[in-house]
C-alpha cells in the first residue's frame, strides 16, 4: 500500500466513525437538556416602579423547598435596594417573586428563595473530575431562551486568588448563575464569566455549600438580613486573608537599572515587563507591572479586591539632569496602575499625604492617597506612589494600588512595598 492509499483509508475510517460519535454526543446533549431543563430557572431583577428588567441571569434549584443558586452579580442590584426586586421565571415563563437569602460576594454566589417546593432539583456535593470531562452548561444566553452548551472541564485555574474552574465552552451574558453539569447530572460549577473564544469560568460548586447553609439559617432567623453589613464583612475578611499572603517571606524583588524593586507579591499575581530603548538614544524606560486577575463584583460601577503595582524606570543616557528630571516629573504626574474602580457615589474623594521619606540612605518622594467606600465601613481604596530622588541619571516611579482593603492593611502593605525599594548592590 502506498502512503497515499494509506491516508485515504484512514480518512475513510474517520468518516465512517464520525457520524456515530457525533450522534452519540447529540443524544447526550439532548438527554441532559430533557432531564435537567426543569431544574433551572430564569432570574431577572426588575425595577419596581416601571417593571422594566434591569438585569438578567440564570439559576438552578438545589433543594426540595425550592432554593435557587445563582451569581451574586445577577441579583446585586436588588440587594439592599428597595427600588429593585428579584423575579424568577418557571419553565412556562410565569414570573414569581424571589427573596435573596444569602450572598457570597467574594465567590459571586447568591441563594434565592422561591417558596415553591419542587422535586426537580440538583443535589449539591463537592466533586473532583479528570481534565477533559465533557460538561453541559445551561442558561439563558442573551435572553434567547433556555439553551444548552457543550464544553470541556479544564481543571481549576492556577495563579488565581479565588478558585475557579476553566470551562472550554461558550458561556454568554445571561447564562450567569446557570449550572454546568456532567452527563449524569452532577453539578460541577456555576457559570460566572467568560473571556471570549470559549474560554469560560465556573465557580466550583463546593463554594455554594456554605452559602446554602447560611440561607437556611437566615430563613430560620425569619429576619431580613442586612446585606450591606454582611457584604462589608465578607470583603473585610477576604482581604485580610489574601493580603496576609502578600510579600511573605522571600525577597520578591526585581533588579532594574540601579534599583531593586518589589515584584510578584504572591503567586496569584501576573507580571509583565517592557523595555523601550529607542528615545533617540537619550534615555531608556523599563516598565514592570504586576496585578491580580481576579476582582470582586460589587455593583455595576464598583469592583473590589484588585491589587496592582507598576514600576517605570527611567535611565538617562547623557541627558542634562534638568531635562532628565523634567521627563521624570512628567512620569511622576501620570498614574500607572488601574483606572477608576468606582463611581463618584461609591467612594469618597481621595485624600493624600505628600512627603519625602528617608530610609537607608535613599530619599523617596511619596504620595499616599486613600478614599473610603461610602456604603461599606472599614473598606478603602489606597494608592501609594513613590519616586526615588537623588540620582542625576536614573529614576523610578512606582505605584501600588489596593482596592477594597482595610486602612491598616493599606499602610502595612505600603510599608512592605517601600521596604523592597532599594539601590541595587553594584
Amino acid at each position, binding site marked *: 500500500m502506498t502512503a497515499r492509499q494509506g491516508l485515504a483509508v484512514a480518512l475513510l475510517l474517520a468518516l465512517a466513525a464520525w457520524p456515530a460519535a457525533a450522534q452519540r454526543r447529540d443524544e447526550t446533549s439532548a438527554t441532559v437538556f430533557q432531564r435537567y431543563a426543569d431544574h433551572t430557572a430564569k432570574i431577572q431583577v426588575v425595577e419596581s416602579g416601571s417593571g422594566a428588567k434591569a438585569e*438578567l441571569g440564570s439559576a438552578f434549584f438545589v433543594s426540595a423547598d425550592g432554593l435557587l443558586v445563582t451569581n451574586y452579580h445577577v441579583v446585586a442590584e436588588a440587594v439592599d435596594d428597595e*427600588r429593585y426586586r428579584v423575579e424568577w421565571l418557571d419553565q412556562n415563563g410565569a414570573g414569581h417573586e424571589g427573596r435573596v437569602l444569602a450572598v457570597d460576594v467574594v465567590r459571586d454566589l447568591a441563594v434565592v428563595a422561591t417558596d415553591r417546593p419542587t422535586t426537580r432539583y440538583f443535589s449539591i456535593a463537592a466533586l473532583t473530575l479528570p481534565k477533559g470531562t465533557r460538561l453541559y452548561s445551561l442558561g439563558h444566553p442573551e435572553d434567547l431562551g433556555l439553551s444548552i452548551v457543550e464544553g470541556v472541564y479544564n481543571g481549576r485555574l492556577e495563579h488565581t486568588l479565588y478558585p475557579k474552574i476553566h470551562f472550554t465552552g461558550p458561556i454568554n451574558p445571561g447564562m450567569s448563575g446557570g449550572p454546568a453539569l456532567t452527563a449524569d447530572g452532577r453539578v460541577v460549577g456555576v457559570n460566572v464569566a467568560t473571556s471570549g473564544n470559549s474560554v469560560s469560568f465556573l465557580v466550583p460548586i463546593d463554594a455554594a455549600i456554605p452559602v446554602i447553609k447560611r440561607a437556611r439559617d437566615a430563613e430560620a432567623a425569619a429576619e431580613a438580613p442586612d446585606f450591606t453589613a454582611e457584604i462589608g464583612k465578607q470583603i473585610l475578611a477576604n482581604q485580610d486573608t489574601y493580603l496576609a499572603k502578600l510579600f511573605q517571606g522571600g525577597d520578591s524583588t526585581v533588579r532594574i537599572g540601579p534599583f531593586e524593586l518589589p515584584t510578584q507579591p504572591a503567586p496569584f499575581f501576573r507580571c509583565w515587563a517592557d523595555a523601550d530603548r529607542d528615545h533617540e538614544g537619550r534615555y531608556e524606560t523599563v516598565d514592570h507591572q504586576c496585578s491580580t486577575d481576579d476582582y470582586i463584583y460589587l455593583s455595576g460601577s464598583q469592583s473590589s479586591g484588585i491589587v496592582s503595582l507598576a514600576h517605570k524606570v527611567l535611565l538617562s543616557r547623557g541627558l542634562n539632569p534638568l531635562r532628565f528630571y*523634567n521627563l521624570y*516629573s512628567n512620569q511622576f504626574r501620570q498614574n500607572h496602575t488601574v483606572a477608576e474602580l468606582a463611581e463618584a457615589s461609591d467612594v469618597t474623594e481621595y*485624600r493624600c*499625604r505628600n*512627603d*519625602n521619606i528617608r530610609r537607608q540612605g535613599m*530619599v523617596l518622594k511619596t*504620595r499616599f492617597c486613600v478614599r473610603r467606600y461610602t456604603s461599606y465601613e472599614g473598606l478603602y481604596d489606597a494608592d501609594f506612589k513613590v519616586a526615588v530622588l537623588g540620582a542625576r541619571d536614573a529614576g523610578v516611579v512606582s505605584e501600588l494600588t489596593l482596592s477594597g482593603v482595610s486602612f491598616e492593611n493599606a499602610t502595612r502593605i505600603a510599608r512592605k512595598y517601600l521596604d523592597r525599594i532599594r539601590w541595587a548592590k553594584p
Partner: protein
Amino acid sequence: MGEAMIIEVADQRGRILQRHRLGAAPVGIGRGLRNAVILDDPYADPDHMVIESTPDGSYHFRDLGSVNGTWEAHHRRVSNGMVRIGTELKVGRTTLRFVSADQPVTPALYDPSAQTGIVGRLLEPRAAAFVLVLYLAVSAGLKYLASPDDPSTAELLTPGLAGLLLAGVWAAMWAFTNRIVAQRFRFLSHWGWAIAITTGLTLLAIGFEWIGFFTPGTDLGAVEGALSAVAGAWLLAGHFQLVTEWPPRRRWAIATGITGAVVGLIAILGRPGGFGAGSVLREGASLKPIAARFLPASDVEGYFARAAELKTAVDRMADDSTASDQAVPGPADSTPKR
C-alpha cells in the same frame, strides 16, 4: 464792543499752524516778515491784507491788491469786509479762522511717557521689543528642558510664538480701546506689558516648583494663587495706565476689584462637590536633580503615623455622603453584565 478774538492759521489739510490774538489794529497779514501774522504760503502776497479796527470796536479786513486774492467761504472773492467770530477767509492756500478767545479747550491729555515706572518705560519701542525677545527666550529655554529629544528651532519657538500671538490679540483689544478713548494707538506698549506679566507668571510658577520641591507636604497652592491674582491685577492696572488718566490709586482699586471678582468666580465654580478623586490623584509634583543629602525628609514611622489622619478625613467624608445619599436616588443601571 466785540469780544476778544483769535486768528487761527490753518494749512490746506486743516492743521492749525499758528494762533494770533487780535489786539491793537492794524494787523498786517502776508508772507513779508514785517507782518504781524506771517504766512508760510507761496500763494500769498508779501503784503496780502490787513485787518483794521473801526471806532465802534469792530474789525474789518481789506485786501491789499494780492495776486491770488482773498476769498470768503462759498468761494466768493472779496476785497474787504467785516470780521466777526466765525468768519473764515482763504488767503492763498491758507485758511484764516476767527474764533472767540473764550472758547473752551479740552483738558490736557495724560502722557504716560512722562511717567516713570515699568509701564511708562514700555512706551519706548526698544523696551517693549526687549520684553518680547526675553519672553521668547524663556519659552524656548523651557521647551528645551521639557523635550528629551533635541527639538528643532521651530519646535523651540512655537510655544513662545503662540504666547506672543495670544498676548497680541489681548493687546490689540486694549490698543483699539485706547484709540477710541484717548485717540492713541499704543499696541506695542500693551503687548509688551501683557508679555512682561506672562513672563513674570511663568517664572513665578518655576519658582514655586522649586520651593514646593524643598517643602514636601506643604500646600503652597494658595500662596501661588494669591500671587498670580496680584499679577493679574497688576496687568489690568498697567493697561489702565496706558489708556486712562486715572491716578494710580484708582487704577489699582478697579484692577483689584475685577481680579477679585474673577478669582471669586473661579473659586465658586471649582469648589469641591464634583468627583474630585481624579483631580487630586493627577495633581503633580515636580522632581528636581538635587543630591539626597540636601533634601528634607521624614522617617518611615513618622510618615505613616501622620498618614493615619487620612483615615479620619475620608471616614468623615463617607459619613457625610451617606447622610446626603439617602435623599438623592441614583440612576438605574440597565445593562446586563457578563
